């Protein structure tokens, strides 16, 4: 008889220490190393985030997740500040609401958020008046960059959240094709010396596109359908399957509209991909149906 013995992993599973914090006057316990955001989520509090993503190291730039911690002079970003025992946290105080509202008003005044439904919901929640500073949005008015058939870059929609830079960097991909260049109003995400993408280090994994919260980075398939006014997200189905190329076993989420695959993503909570894919997994589906 053929027998193959199994082994289950036991090493490293020591008892995890927990810490207790007080959020909005309720105690909540989380594992040591968890953030305030984790603690908020554990207590059922929905915290707005823009630059935070589960699979990226927080860069603390959007300031929309800030909370009030007793004893701290300034508001603190909940996405990166670790929960400490005995912390007294307020997530919905006037000061927190006011700060979040200001952040959303500034963003709404200067960026095209027409394809950022999540941020627009935050604006409604915090009663942000995006016309408070300008009548209309003052975007930088750059032409959309369409260099190939895989994805486009629309700088008018960029909120400079750095997620794409992180996704290209040392959290997983290690390609480092893009960084934030320039100063002040010239601040923008750029390839080295602003060269076109095929001349940069870009390997077209699309992991930057997958994390963009505003569609500033957008798959060309989605862009084309939107332009012809035939992008109907509400009709789309999303099916999880496994990539057809190499043997790593990446999970794909196939977004299907009218029996055609229109976008491919990967589940952030999958142990193999953590939301990331390569060029083949992301764009290699186009033969299906042909």
């Amino acid at each position, binding site marked *: 008889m053929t027998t193959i013995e199994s082994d289950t992993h036991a090493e490293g599973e020591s008892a995890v220490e927990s810490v207790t914090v007080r959020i909005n006057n309720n105690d909540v316990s989380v594992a040591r190393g968890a953030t305030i955001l984790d603690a908020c989520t554990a207590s059922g509090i929905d915290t707005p985030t823009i630059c935070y993503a589960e699979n990226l190291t927080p860069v603390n730039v959007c300031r929309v997740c800030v909370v009030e911690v007793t004893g701290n002079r300034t508001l603190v970003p909940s996405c990166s500040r670790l929960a400490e025992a005995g912390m007294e946290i307020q997530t919905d105080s006037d000061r927190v609401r006011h700060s979040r509202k200001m952040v959303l008003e500034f963003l709404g005044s200067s960026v095209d958020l027409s394809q950022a439904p999540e941020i627009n919901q935050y604006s409604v929640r915090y009663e942000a008046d995006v016309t408070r500073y300008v009548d209309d949005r003052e975007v930088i008015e750059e032409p959309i960059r369409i260099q190939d058939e895989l994805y486009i870059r629309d700088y008018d929609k960029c909120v400079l959240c750095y997620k794409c830079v992180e996704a290209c960097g040392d959290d997983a991909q290690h390609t480092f094709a893009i960084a934030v260049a320039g100063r002040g109003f010239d601040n923008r995400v750029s390839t080295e010396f602003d060269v076109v993408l095929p001349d940069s280090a870009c390997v077209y994994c699309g992991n930057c596109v997958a994390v963009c919260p505003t569609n500033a980075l957008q798959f060309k398939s989605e862009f084309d359908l939107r332009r012809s006014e035939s992008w109907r997200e509400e009709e789309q189905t999303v099916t999880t399957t496994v990539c057809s190329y190499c043997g*790593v076993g990446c999970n794909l989420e196939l977004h299907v509209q009218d029996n055609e695959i229109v976008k491919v993503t990967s589940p952030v909570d999958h142990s193999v991909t953590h939301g990331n894919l390569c060029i*083949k997994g992301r764009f290699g589906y186009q033969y299906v149906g042909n």
Partner: protein
Amino acid sequence: MFGAGGGTVSYAEIEEADVILLWGSNAREAHPIFFHHLMKGLDNGARMYSVDPRRTSSSKFADLWLGIDVGTDIALANAIAREIIHAGLANDDFIIRSTRGYEDFAAAVEPYTLDVAAEITGVPATAIREVAHAYATGGKSQILWTLGITEHHNAVDNVLSLCNLALLTGHVGRWGSGLVPLRGQNNVQGGGDMGALPDKLPGFQRIDDDADRTKFEAAYGMGLNPTPGIHLTLMFEAMERSELTAVYVVGENPADSEADVDRARALLSGLDCLVVQDIFLTRTAQLADVVLPASVAWAESDGTVTSSERRVQRVRGAVTPPGEARHDIDIIIDLADRMGVDLGTNEPEALWDELRSLSPLHAGMSYERLEAGGLQWPCPSLDHPGSPFLHGWLWADDLGGRAPAPFSVVEHEGPKEQLTEEFPLRLTTGRSLDSYNTGVQSNGFTSPIRYGEALDINPVDGESLGLSDGERVRVSSPRGSVEMAVRFQFDIPIGLTFTTYHFPDLVDINKLTNDAWDKRSGTSEFKAAAIRIDKIDFPIPMAGS
């Protein structure tokens, strides 16, 4: 290895490894998302050594690149083993308790001194010594390989030479340490697991083992042929002898992918009957008497596939197949029906449950349990969590009642096809990031970073042949010739050339590759042909002129 065909560790384990030997693998391009896990290991402080004839994009992340001559892997592995033994770094307790054949092995590697190996492999002795010491002294060390090890005429010996290193140091059967063949196709692991091997039933049970076979015979209510079948390479030899006259090809494109492809095409064309079941009209399908249009398994039907870490995962239908395309299962059931056999249900889950009732490795993997990210075999019961790594029995007091793991004596042979005055350059083939195999899938999208097929060559060789970068040349091996452009690459050592095999319609590179093959694995030596480059004297006429 040691009984079951599967990588011994999980991807997550490399994130905690101390020493990584990436051997004959350009995982950065061929397994990009696995490379994310590997990078996490490097970020956590692991040292990586890359053994590859080319300075690949993976090698550039390594602490040290060992630019080995093509096909000299066994000399390198044996020298590493000898150095570990002589430096007193072998794991004597593990060797005594868990292995056998050590004395013969130690004697066999004795001639492979650092200097001898340096001479054979082209890798400096100091580098070999460094790798030996790092690998042996690392708390958790892994060896990973792909086709750089297995696409040789002595593929099995190559693999065994790496297994020897793990047995010598005890770097197997523990969390973080192991032996990892990275699988090149999305279900090549699952195919083998399901018994798509000439001598196996599902779950690595043997067709020629009476107890194993009887179980299947009882389940199906009929006798099964106990004689193992033959693998692809032997099939071509049987075609040559006219013993095999009818062939049914499912989802494979041998008319493009075989080494010495002209011979393969001639043999396929000479068959009495060739049936091809595929989603494309591949070159093989064009030769067929009957083509059965199939649906896309991963996007148009339900089922499972199994990854490099033995993780069984669900695939699900997301779109309906076009035209007359049908699910593979339905085609096979109908075909059996015409032959007078009722195969029963076509429901993927019911078929999977039948498999679970016969394969102990998979018994605990219900569809319901597979929903949450899959399970790794062995998973023998519904309450079993699955197995991140294999061969923990090597560390059990009584070895779980098994025989100790054997060392293997393997000797350096080198590539079958030696370089000659007529064919003085070495050709090796491999993958690039944005393309895949014979291109039938990956050529469906336009990649901005695809440069097409070119022969990568060191500029020194290029200039000594009087060539300029990008020039079209004639490339010949003892089997045939193709025309293609050269691409000057400093990452290719002098004397070596490299190309991919993704665009057979543009460059029919397998006209050149050598079909010398390993009698045990059936794999051809795609990695080592001898070639010559000639200038094309006359300009190629432009289309229409």
